[in-house]
């Protein structure tokens, strides 16, 4: 069978073998949990608790700050110690609600109650998802209820579960698909209930054959759901390329998946929807892969939000050697961290500790115009030409050469034999253009 895919892309070393076989392990939080009010795309949430208040597991501690926003939910019970600015994993500073864990794990009223989603109306489901603070757990953190509320429900033809997990090293989606596939499928069924005309597709890269087999078996009786194996290639899980691979429809950077009749959810997001709707448990945990060649025992954790990255590292046995780099996320798009005393948020995906890589440390040299960047670019742009205008700050020319279509996947930088920092230049230029647009 021809595997679904897109044109371009790269095949970096997978590195998934480090943590692939390790079952998800639940991690107990420490004494102090930190909840930033901004762990999603959109307006920051607004705290609805004050210092000294007691909070419970599953209690909302900050309200959504606008239409595109999401509430923040406490993952432990205890006392609100401080509400202050703290540094986050991405280096930014944001208002954080600090809760002292009383280790009682007292649940808020109603949390954990079973519900039958079939008896719920569309509005009820959307309200539950919204109040549960669910955002896209693939890393972008777009509020899920906004995604699930397009202008016209009947225009949605496909609900796609993104199980590509194309970033090297990451295995959290894989473990979820393997260990709790029923959750994912039920999450998808809840989404399908919102879009009566849509077909459900679970898209998985073919480097996870056991996950594909398991899901296929599980949905064999479901008329509205099918499993779509994808060619293993980075960035296969990029939303636009996933939609194209699965449906043949193309969207550009200024369009939404709904414009192509699609709703795309990450594997863990679907699981979070299921937990919120069927088990009345809001988003208070996520799955994180702690891995890399400098980690003693690479593995996958079910982690309460608000926990500190240092605790993750300790739980994985610590480091085997001095790492060169610690990355929040995968090696292709993750952000390098400069400290570990920062909280895990809804949009954290992995903690990666890498040792010194000879190739990455090489000095950039002259472009030999080999064209590798052009052939791998999934956005069909010409990184080689774009680079020159980006480093010279020529915003107009940058947009003309489709610089804003760049998804910053890093494929061009990965293949460049001259080791030029292409993506890095584009990211900077894109940020400048975006900021200028806002000014206007």
């Amino acid at each position, binding site marked *: 069978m021809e595997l679904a895919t*897109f044109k371009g892309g*790269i095949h*970096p*070393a997978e590195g998934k073998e480090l943590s692939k076989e390790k079952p998800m392990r639940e991690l107990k939080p420490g004494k102090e949990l930190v909840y930033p009010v901004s762990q999603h795309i959109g307006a920051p949430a607004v705290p609805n608790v004050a210092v000294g208040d007691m909070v419970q597991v599953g209690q909302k501690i900050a309200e959504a700050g606008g239409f595109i926003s999401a509430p923040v939910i406490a993952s432990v019970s205890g006392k609100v110690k401080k509400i202050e600015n703290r540094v986050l994993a991405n280096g930014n500073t944001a208002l954080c609600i600090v809760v002292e864990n009383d280790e009682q794990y007292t649940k808020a009223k109603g949390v954990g109650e079973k519900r039958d989603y079939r008896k719920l109306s569309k509005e009820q489901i959307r309200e539950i998802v919204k109040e549960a603070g669910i955002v896209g757990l693939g890393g972008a953190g777009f509020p899920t209820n906004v995604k699930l509320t397009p202008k016209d429900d009947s225009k949605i033809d496909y609900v796609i579960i993104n199980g590509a997990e194309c970033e090297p090293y990451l295995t959290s989606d894989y473990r979820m698909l393997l260990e709790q596939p029923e959750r994912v499928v039920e999450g998808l069924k809840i989404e399908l209930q919102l879009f009566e005309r849509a077909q459900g597709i679970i898209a998985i890269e073919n480097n996870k054959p056991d996950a594909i087999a398991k899901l296929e078996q599980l949905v064999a009786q479901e008329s509205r759901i099918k499993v779509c194996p994808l060619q293993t290639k980075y960035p296969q899980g990029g939303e*636009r390329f996933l939609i194209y691979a699965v449906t043949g*429809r*193309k969207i*550009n*950077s200024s*369009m939404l998946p709904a414009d192509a009749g699609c709703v795309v959810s990450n594997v863990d997001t679907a699981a979070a929807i299921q937990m919120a709707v069927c088990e009345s448990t809001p988003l208070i945990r996520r799955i994180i892969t702690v891995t890399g060649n400098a980690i003693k025992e690479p593995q996958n954790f079910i982690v309460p939000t608000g926990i500190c990255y240092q605790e993750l590292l300790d739980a994985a046995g610590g*480091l085997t050697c*001095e*790492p060169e*780099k610690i*990355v929040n*996320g995968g*090696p*292709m*798009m*993750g952000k*390098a*961290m*400069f400290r*570990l005393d920062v909280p895990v948020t809804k949009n954290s995906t992995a903690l*990666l500790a*890498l040792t010194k*890589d000879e*190739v990455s440390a*090489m000095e950039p*040299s*002259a*472009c*030999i*115009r*080999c*064209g*590798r960047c*052009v*052939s791998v670019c*999934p*956005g*069909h*742009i*010409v990184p080689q*030409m774009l680079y020159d205008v980006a480093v010279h700050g020529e915003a107009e020319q940058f947009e003309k*050469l*489709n610089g804003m*279509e760049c998804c910053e996947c*890093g494929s061009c*930088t*990965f*293949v*460049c*034999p*001259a*080791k030029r*920092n292409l*993506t*890095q230049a584009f*990211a900077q230029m894109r940020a400048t253009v975006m900021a200028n647009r806002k000014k206007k």
Partner: protein
Amino acid sequence: MSHMLNVSCAPHVRSKDTTHSIMFDVAIALLPTTAFGIFHFGYRALIIMLVSIVACVGTEYLYQRGMKQKITIEDGSALVTGMLLGLNLSVEVPWWIPLLGGVFAILVVKQLFGGLGQNFMNPALAARCFLLISFAGRMTRFSCDGVSGATPLALLKNGEQVNVMDLFLGFIGGTIGEVSALAVLIGAAYLVWRKVISLRIPLVYIGTFALFVLLFGGHGFDFSYLGAQLFGGGLMLGAFFMATDYVTSPITPNGQIVFGVMLGILTGIFRIFGASAEGVSYAIIFCNMLVPLIERVTLPIAFGKEKTENGK
């Protein structure tokens, strides 16, 4: 943690390919035809190759030293230029010809225009054409098995017959590297296998040229004439090793097709209607100069920007 972490932008991993590894792959791919040239023409071919390589690498070294630039001879690009220049010379040339050619290729064509990646023509071919114009007599004296004689293409031009099998294997007169189509193809297969080159330019080039010969060659569908045109002269070496030169060929996929078509047509015009029997070198350096134009009109359409979208 006791030491500072390296904080840089994503991506944090890179492929193993480097400029150095690519250039050495090209050098390896040129070995079969170099070896055949030395076997066929004798030790003089080896001397010409060595002088050419030393001239290119030496010029690059001295220029960068003199200009207080970073010395980049270890990237292997000057080595490849030297090999290509040597392979493009007749074994009959005096020793100072490759020396002069090497200095011209690196100094004038490459370094004065900004060094690696900035030259607007293939340095080896530009040097060959410079030598051809300056020393026409010396550059076009060919021999085979110690006997001076015309190249198969020249014979063909005069209406004589040639043995296609000899042409393919390389037991003919010509420049050191162009005689054996087989040896060139072995090297080309290595480059394709190593993913150093794509077949887009060479196949379009050779295909267009073959079509041109069939249409305008005046011999109709005569296999031996077509075969002689394809395997005689520098077409194979030019198509696989020089038209595919990264720096001087278009970077856009469609541009590469346009480039190949133009090369095929120009080579056909030069060979069939021109005064000289050969035309590959001139066709390539001429098209080299059109590359910026070709790229400008063949920019790919960004993903999702196509107008024919369903509903949109």
